[in-house]
C-alpha cells in the first residue's frame, strides 16, 4: 500500500504502553490496465486525500518512495501518480551513503 504521511504521533494506551503511529492518506490501488500493459512496472494511483485517511503503526512503514505525477489518460482526467522505488534500495545503502539528518528543519 502507498500512502502520504500527514504526521507522526505518539499515544499512551490504557496499560501505559506508548505506541508510535502515523496519520496517513492512502493512494488508490494501482490502475489495472496500466499494470497489465507494463508487466506490472507502472503502478499508477490516485490520491485519496481525506477519503483515504487512516492510522498505521509506524513500524509498518517499509520505505520512502516517490509518487510522480503523470496524466496517462490525457490532460483532463484525474491527476494520477506513479510509484518509483529507489532502484535496488541497497545499492547506495550498502555503500554506506546514509541520509544525513539535519538537527531540525
Amino acid at each position: 500500500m502507498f500512502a502520504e504521511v500527514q504526521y507522526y504521533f505518539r499515544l499512551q494506551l490504557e496499560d501505559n504502553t506508548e505506541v508510535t503511529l502515523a496519520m496517513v492518506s492512502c493512494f488508490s490501488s494501482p490502475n489495472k490496465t496500466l499494470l497489465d500493459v507494463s508487466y506490472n512496472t507502472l503502478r499508477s494511483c490516485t490520491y485519496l486525500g481525506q477519503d483515504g485517511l487512516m492510522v498505521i503503526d509506524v513500524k509498518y512503514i517499509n520505505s520512502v518512495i516517490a509518487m510522480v505525477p503523470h496524466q496517462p489518460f490525457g490532460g483532463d482526467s484525474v491527476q494520477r501518480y506513479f510509484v518509483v522505488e529507489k532502484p535496488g534500495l541497497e545499492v547506495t545503502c550498502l555503500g554506506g551513503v546514509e541520509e544525513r539528518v539535519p538537527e531540525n528543519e
Partner: protein
Amino acid sequence: MKQNEPTTNTTGIPRDPEQDGNDESQANGSETPIDDWESQLPEPGSLEDISCQGPQSVPPAAPHDPMFPEEIRNTVQYEDIDLDELSALAKLDHIKQAMEFIRALEGASLDDGVSKLGPEALHRLRNPPTCPADIASQDLRLGLDLFLSTINSSQQTYTSTRKAILRRHPDNDIPTYDQIKRRIVEITGVESIEHDMCVKSCLAYTGPFAELNACLECGEPRCDPITKKARQTFHTMLLGPQLQALWRDKDSAEQMLYRRRVTAMILELLKENGGILPTYDDYFYGSEYIEAVLDGRVQDTDVVLMLSLDGAQLYRYKQSDCWIYIWVIMDLSPGLRYKKKYVLIGGIIPGPHKPKIVDSYLFPGLHHVSALQKEGLPIWNASHNVVEISRLFFALGAADGPGMTYLNGLVGHHGKNGCRIYCSATGRHKPGISHYYPAFYKPYNYDVEGCSHNDYSYENPPSRSPELYEKNLRYLMESPNERQYKKRRLETGICKPSIFLGLDPRHKVAIPLCFGSDIMHLESLNIPDLLIPLWRGTFDCDKTDSRSTWPWAVLRGDVWEAHGRDVAAATPYLPGSFDRPPRNPAEKISSGYKAWEFLLYLYGLGPGVFYNVLPQTYYQHFCKLVFAVRIINQHQIKTEDLQAAHQALVEFAHEFELLYYQRRTDRLHFVRQSIHALTHLALEVIRLGPLICSSQWTMERTIGNLVEEIRSHLHPYANLSQRGLERCQINALKAMFPDLEEPENPIPRGAKDLGNGFVLLRARDGTARHITDAECQVLKCYLRDTRGIDTPQDWSPKISRWARLRLPNGQVARSAWKEKLRPLEKVRMARNVMVRCSPSTSPLNKC
C-alpha cells in the same frame, strides 16, 4: 507471468515469421514458445542450479534429495589445470611471459623478497600481537585524533593545529606530523611496498621483469641515468597486516564473524529445505561458495575476498589514466563491507598512460595473497581470544568490460566468443567487418564463414563449462606461430592464460567462474547506450537500412524535448534518499550523464515517462526489462522472483532480436553483447548470489572518493598512492580502535529511538493539540480494530505531531505537515511511503 499463456501474442510482440514457417530452423528446435520458458527453468535454488550447466546436463535424480552434501560434492568442479603441462605447451613469447607470472605466483613465498617485507614486518605478520591494541599515551591519542580530523586538509593544518595546542599546553608531547605517521605504521603494521615501473606505464618491474633495465614494450630505460633511481614507481598495499588489524578489536572481530554465522545458517537452511534456497540474500547463498564450503576449500577461519579493478581518468580533458584495484572483505556483513571504512585499496597504477601488462602490476599484491594461501595467515581473533590460521580464499574478480579482459584473459566483447562469462555461444559478423555480435538468430540470406551456424535457442542456450575453458586454453597455448595464435584466439575467445591461474585451486573459485557479471555497467551504461540512441533514431544505420523504417525511433524533435522535460519535472518528487535525480536527458544526456542517473531514469521513471511515448509493442518490451532489473538489483532476492526475472530477461533478448534486429544482416550491430549478457544474469545470481554484491558500484565510489581527496595536482599520481596508503592505515586504525571514530549517524538531540532502527525525529509540536473529527474517527477505528480498544463516543485526544521518521534502511520519511510549508521547487518530497502489509482496516471500506 502466467505459466500457460495461449500464444506469444499477449504483449503484441510479432512472431518471427521464420519461426512460424516450416523451414529448417524449426527442425532445428529453435522455435521459442514463450509459454514454455518457465517450465524449462531449473527448480528454484535446487541442486540443478548448483551445477550451473543448464538443465540438459543435470543428472536426473538430485533436486529434492535430502543427502544434498554428497550430491553437491559429486558436481564440484574446481580447477584442475596442470601448470607444468600448460607451461610446456607455450610456444610464443607473450604466452610464455604470461605463464612466467603464473608460475611465479604459484611458487610465491613470503621469504622470496618480492613482497619486500623487512625482518620485523615479517616477524609481526607471522606472530601477530595477541592482545588488544592500546593507545597508552594521551599525547599519542591527541596526535591520532588530530591526524584523523585533518586528514582531508594539508599537512600544514596538522602542524599548525599542533603548534596552537602546544602554545596553550607546552608540556604536551604531541607527535609531529612525521612522528605520527611513523607511529601509525608501528601500530597498524600497514605499509605499502614500492616497485619500479616503466615511465610510460607499460609494465612494472616485477616477477619475470624484475631484473630488466628497460621496458620491453617501449624501450624506455628503467632508471634515471644520473640519479640511478627508478624514474617511476607504484605502490601495493599488502593485505596481511590489514586483515590482522580487522580482528584485533573485540567488536571488529565480532563483525568479521558474520560469514561464519551466515554460512552455518545457510547450510542448515539447505538441509531443512532439501537443497533448495528460498532466497538469495548475499554472496554466500551462491552455489560457488556453498560448493567451496562443502568441499572443505573454505574453512571458518578463512577470509573470503573479492578483487575489483577499474581505470579512471583523473582529469576530464587530458589523458590521465589511472588504474586502481581494491579488495572487498566478504566476511563482513553486506551492510559494512562496501563502506569506505572497510574497502581496502590493493594498489594504484599511475598514468597518464594506460598500463599494457597489467599482470605485472597485480603481481606483488597477488603474490602476497598466494604466499599467505600457502603458509596461512595467523590471526589473533580478539572475539574468541585465539590465534587462528586463515587462508585467503579468492572468491571473485570484478571489473567493467575493458578491465575484465585484464583479469580473465579473454578477448572482450567484440570477439567471436565475446561473452564475458565464457558461455559457448559464438557471434556473427557482417561480411567484411570483423566485429562479432551475439545474435542468436541467423540473418536472412546470410552466409559468412564461421558465422552461419543455425539459430541458437533462447530456451535452451549454449552451455558454459570449465572444461571448455581448459580445452580451449590448451589449444590457444599450443599456437606454433603468431598467425595460428590469432586464428585460435578468434576461435576460442581467449587471449592469454589468466594470472589468477597461479593461485592455488584449493583457495579460489575456478577460472573463469570467479569472474562474474557487472550489473552496474550493463544496466546503467551499456543498455541505455543501446536503447536510447535507437529510440532517438541516432543509432548507426547501414546504407541498406533506413531510419524511416524504424518504428521505435520516436524520441525526436518535440517529442524528445517534451520527454526530457517530463524527466526533469520529476525531480521534486524524488526523495533526497534517491540521491542524484536524473537531469533533463534532452539537454544533458551527452554531458556526463551518470550511471546513477540512467538507473533512475530508465528503471525508476521509465515505465511512467515512456508510456504513450514509445509505440506500445516497444513499450511493453521495455517494461519486461524494467521488471527484471528491479528484481536483479535487489540485495535480497526471492527465488520465485528470480525465476520471473529470468523469464522476463530471456524474453526480452529474444524479442529484441525480433523487434529491432529482425534477422537483418545490416542490423547485426544492434545485437550487442549487453543484450546477450542479460540472459545470464539470473543464473549468475544462483552461482554468485545477488549481483549487487559483486557489482562495480563499490569500485566506482571508491575511485570517486579517492580522486576527490587528491591534494596535489602537480603530482596527482604520487599523491593518489599516498592517499590510498593512508586510507588503508586509517581503516586499520579504526578497526583496532573503534572509539577513534564518532559513532555513525548518531541519534540527534530531541529524537526518540523506537528500536529496530526506527527513530522519530523533530520537528515536534511544542504543545499537544486536538485533531480534526475525521482524524479522530480513523484513530478510533485503528484503536478498535488493531488494538481492541474501545473509546468513548466523545473521546477527543490531544496529540503532539512529529515531522520525521528514520527507517531501518537509513531513509528518512517526512510528512505533509512540514513539507507543505515549503515551495515545491525547494522540496525533494519524502513523505510518501510504502506500507508493508495492509493493516486491518482498508481505507476504501472504512468503518
